[in-house]
């Protein structure tokens, strides 16, 4: 129970006192005094604890008026309300009482209900007034509270139109840190110190208020030209008060010119000025000026224009291509929004997106982007381009929209697309606010078939918990993260860790903002799946992207027809200058860099190593015949020998010598450039050699012929060797299968080779459908097939997969007279042994399967 409020009854007549007690004592704690003198001593004892005084006027010793005058003159008591009890016999007493400062009067004979009501309402009134009084001042610092500061400042500004005023606000940059490290009491001390500083600084020339937590404001007559010195001194004073010696303060000044601006706005502007220098070392104050004003005006203009911009189709989507890192094929695009304003021109999303996020318009804009992206996808489908996907942004605000799933589904349906064509990029930061809601919403979207990408991964507070809980398909690594990451030595990087994590969680990884070749190399090394960035292509209008799709799409389609084996298109062609003359190399690099990525080699060994490393990425080699270790001719010999693999155009160089030229051409050089020659002519020769020799598509076709089994379209033995050479560390562990069609010979004999061939084609198709495009499938011999499945370390899983394939084969020929079954052996390959050894092991297991478990799969156990 709350302590009862105290009422003091001052009344000389005992009967009246008892009666008043009777009326009041059920609601209040009643104190009594027989006369004014006694009442004063009670007052001194209880002071402001007393909520109200009921006073009789006619009393001996000290009458009511005298008592009232004393009480009202003493600031300690003056706020205690006094109700005077009078006889109901004339207005004079009442008027006199009120003029002496009584709050109200009640007449005798007492009317209890009236007394109780008056007492309650007067106590209530006084408490409210006290509260207002309290709110006027900030309790901690004693400065005006924010609202009250506004009021006082406004009054002052209006009262003195002849004076010029400034509003100064300050913000402690690292106040939370100070509170955290030194504790709240230290923080409070600091704030009180700052309040004192303000009071001293302003003196009688203005007023001060505490604006917000660690923000203060003052209205000050304009006296000074503000200099760094002034604020440095102020900061020093503050630092001398605090145990924290590194309090960083920023001050903002607003010169009051237009007095019709509200004080709220003036303070906001001063604070905006202070905030504009946040984090800038050595800058102490800033004035709210035209730059800031323009920024605000511009934000306002953007806000005013956004709705009509959407209606007038000023927004447009741009697409940034996304490539598959393995073969550089076009894998999709991210849709980004651009604002083409009729007057302002192209607007930077970096400017308007944060604003739209703030004012909520982002939801509408996102929906627009979704719609446009789907429309583009549909139009490409109609033109017969490959069915790529497009990523679109889903903002934080969208997640909180209860209808988001409905809206997205309606959008894809409108354009007759499966949801999987639309990839939804969710930002990591969205997770931090309301994890449960975002997980639920995203989960529902994923169930509907949308592909979920975690955008900006690694840039914010990446939480492993979030990765664990969020239903995801793709991780998008933030470009900033990648830019920093690739600068570190390989081993220190956590990029590799993230890749491992992604692999483990079955997520694909897209690297965004790839800008340099080094980054690409790194990303390729660690096995990133997709890349996006200026190194490949900037975001482009839909039309341009369509052209790209048209060009690349053809390649994609061809790849599709021959499935598993795809070769990469060069990203930037490399040119190897193998020459003993450093100056010559430098000249070539200077002239041709940009068109080609020029790599240099000063001797034969370096050149060979480079060729082995770069293989088909090399556009051409400029080879000096006078090179050493080994010499140019030996180099040509090697190149010639490896022509089927490398097939790199060679431009031989050397002194003008007919014999030398002839010999070089004889040994396989594609051209000869006698020294000295102009670099322009060299460039022409390179271009010709590259052009004549091989376009990528032709290379591919040639390779295909040489490496493919004509019947099944799988790799032949040679192709298998080639593919195995291209295996990378992150592909391991591998499962190597050897399949054998059990009854092929019998079928061939009984039904003829056409039937047998069909069986082979059928099995080839079956293998394709049971493996990923990245796995290696080869027809090894007549009825033998080798399958290498990547990243398959679990023996049980490998065995099960083999069993699945065998069973599928069995079931497919169930109705035939001669069951066409396949048996298999599988061995896990950790890439330490050579392929032949592993195939032998698989063969052993196959033999076992054939004898014990025909039509099934066996695992080789060392």
């Amino acid at each position, binding site marked *: 129970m709350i302590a009862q409020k105290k009422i003091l009854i001052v009344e000389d007549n005992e*009967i009246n006192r*008892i009666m008043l007690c009777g*009326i009041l004592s059920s609601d209040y704690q009643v104190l009594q005094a027989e006369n004014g003198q006694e009442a004063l001593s009670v007052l001194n004892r209880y002071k402001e604890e007393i909520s109200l005084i009921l006073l009789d006027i006619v009393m001996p010793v000290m009458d009511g008026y005298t008592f009232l005058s004393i009480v009202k003159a003493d600031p300690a008591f003056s706020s205690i309300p006094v109700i005077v009890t009078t006889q109901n*016999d004339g207005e004079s007493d009442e008027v006199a009482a009120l003029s002496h400062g009584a709050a109200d009067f009640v007449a*005798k004979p007492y009317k209890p209900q009236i007394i109780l009501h008056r007492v309650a309402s007067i106590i209530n009134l006084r408490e409210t007034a006290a509260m207002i009084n309290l709110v006027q001042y900030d309790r901690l610092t004693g400065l005006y509270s924010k609202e009250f500061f506004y009021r006082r400042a406004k009054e002052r500004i209006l009262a003195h139109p002849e004076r010029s005023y400034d509003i100064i606000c300050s913000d402690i940059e690292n106040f939370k840190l100070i509170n955290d490290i030194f504790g709240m009491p230290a923080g409070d001390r600091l704030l009180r110190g700052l309040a004192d500083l303000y009071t001293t600084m302003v003196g009688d020339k203005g007023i001060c208020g505490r604006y917000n937590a660690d923000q203060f404001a003052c209205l000050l007559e304009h006296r000074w030209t503000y200099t760094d010195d002034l604020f440095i001194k102020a900061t020093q004073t503050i630092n001398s008060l605090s145990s924290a010696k590194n309090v960083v303060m920023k001050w903002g000044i607003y010169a009051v010119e237009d007095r019709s601006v509200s004080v709220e706005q003036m303070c906001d502007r001063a604070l905006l000025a202070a905030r504009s220098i946040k984090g800038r070392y050595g800058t102490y104050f800033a004035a709210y000026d035209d730059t800031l004003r323009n920024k605000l005006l511009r934000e306002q203009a953007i806000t005013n224009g956004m709705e009509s911009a959407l209606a007038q189709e000023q927004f447009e989507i741009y697409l940034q291509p996304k490539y598959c890192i393995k073969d550089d094929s076009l894998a999709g695009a991210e849709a980004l929004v651009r604002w083409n304003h009729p007057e302002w021109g192209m607007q930077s999303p970096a400017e308007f997106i944060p604003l739209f996020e703030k004012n909520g318009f982002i939801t509408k804009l996102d929906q627009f982007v979704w719609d446009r992206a789907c429309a583009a996808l549909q139009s490409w489908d109609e033109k017969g381009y490959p069915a790529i996907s497009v990523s679109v942004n889903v903002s934080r605000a969208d997640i909180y929209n209860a209808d988001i799933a409905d809206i997205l589904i309606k959008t894809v349906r409108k354009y007759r697309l499966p949801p999987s064509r639309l990839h939804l990029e969710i930002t990591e930061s969205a997770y931090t606010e309301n994890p449960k809601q975002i997980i639920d919403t995203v989960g529902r979207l994923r169930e509907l078939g949308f592909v979920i990408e975690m955008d900006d991964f690694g840039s914010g507070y990446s939480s492993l918990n979030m990765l664990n809980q969020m239903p995801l398909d793709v991780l998008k690594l933030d470009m900033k993260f990648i830019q920093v990451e690739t600068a570190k030595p390989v081993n220190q990087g956590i990029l590799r860790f993230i890749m491992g994590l992604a692999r483990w969680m079955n997520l694909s990884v897209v690297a965004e903002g790839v800008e340099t070749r080094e980054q690409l190399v790194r990303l390729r090394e660690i096995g990133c799946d997709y890349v996006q960035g200026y190194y490949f292509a900037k975001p482009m209008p839909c039309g341009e992207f369509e052209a790209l799709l048209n060009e690349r799409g053809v390649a994609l389609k061809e790849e599709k027809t021959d499935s598993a084996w795809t070769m990469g298109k060069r990203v930037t062609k490399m040119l190897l200058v193998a020459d003993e003359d450093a100056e010559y190399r430098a000249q070539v690099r200077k002239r041709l860099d940009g068109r080609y990525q020029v790599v240099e080699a000063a001797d034969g060994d370096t050149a060979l190593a480079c060729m082995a490393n770069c293989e088909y990425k090399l556009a051409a080699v400029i080879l000096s015949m006078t090179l050493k270790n080994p010499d140019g001719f030996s180099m040509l010999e090697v190149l010639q020998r490896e022509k089927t693999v490398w097939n790199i155009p060679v431009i031989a160089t050397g002194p003008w010598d007919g014999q030398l030229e002839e010999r070089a051409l004889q040994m396989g050089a594609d051209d000869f450039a006698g020294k000295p020659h102009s670099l322009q002519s060299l460039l022409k020769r390179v271009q010709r050699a590259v052009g004549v020799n091989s376009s990528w598509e032709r290379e591919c076709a040639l390779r295909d012929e040489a490496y493919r089994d004509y019947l099944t379209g799988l790799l032949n033995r040679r192709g298998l060797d080639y593919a195995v050479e291209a295996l990378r560390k992150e592909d391991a562990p591998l499962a190597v299968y050897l399949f054998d069609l059990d009854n092929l010979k019998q079928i061939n004999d009984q039904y003829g080779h056409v039937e047998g061939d069909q069986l082979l084609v059928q099995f080839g198709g079956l293998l394709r459908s049971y493996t990923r495009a990245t796995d290696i499938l080869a027809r090894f011999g007549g009825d033998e097939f080798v399958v290498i499945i990547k990243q398959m370390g679990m023996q049980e899983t490998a065995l099960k997969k083999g069993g699945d394939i065998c069973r599928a084969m069995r079931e497919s020929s169930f109705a035939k007279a001669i069951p066409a079954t396949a048996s298999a052996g599988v061995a896990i390959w950790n890439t330490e042994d050579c392929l032949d050894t592993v195939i032998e092991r698989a063969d052993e297991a196959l033999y076992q399967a054939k004898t014990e478990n025909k039509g099934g799969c066996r695992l080789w156990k060392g």
Partner: protein
Amino acid sequence: MSGLKECLEVYGADYTATMERFMGNEALYLKIFDLFFQDENLQKLSKALQEADFTAAFEAAHTLKGVVGNMGLTPLYEAVCALVEPLRLKERQDEYPVLYQEIEKQYETVKKLYCQLKGGKPA
């Protein structure tokens, strides 16, 4: 003892209005009644009038008026009121003895009422 309501009404008091003032608490009313005869204002008034100290007389009469009014003793209240107003203005001084006698007379009636309430025993 007769009922308080009956006795008061026979005496000429407004029982309902009076008991409202005492929050319907008859015991409190009777307690106050006990105190009433200890109150010295009647004696003070009498003395002041004899000494022609009209200021003191007014104060005493004024206080008495409040008490009697609160107790709802209407006939006595009216008698006191008749004296208080001339006293406040210090006029019609020749009438004071008559007015005072009327107060004393009514005071006696109240005493009888009190005895009645206390079961016939004198105060």
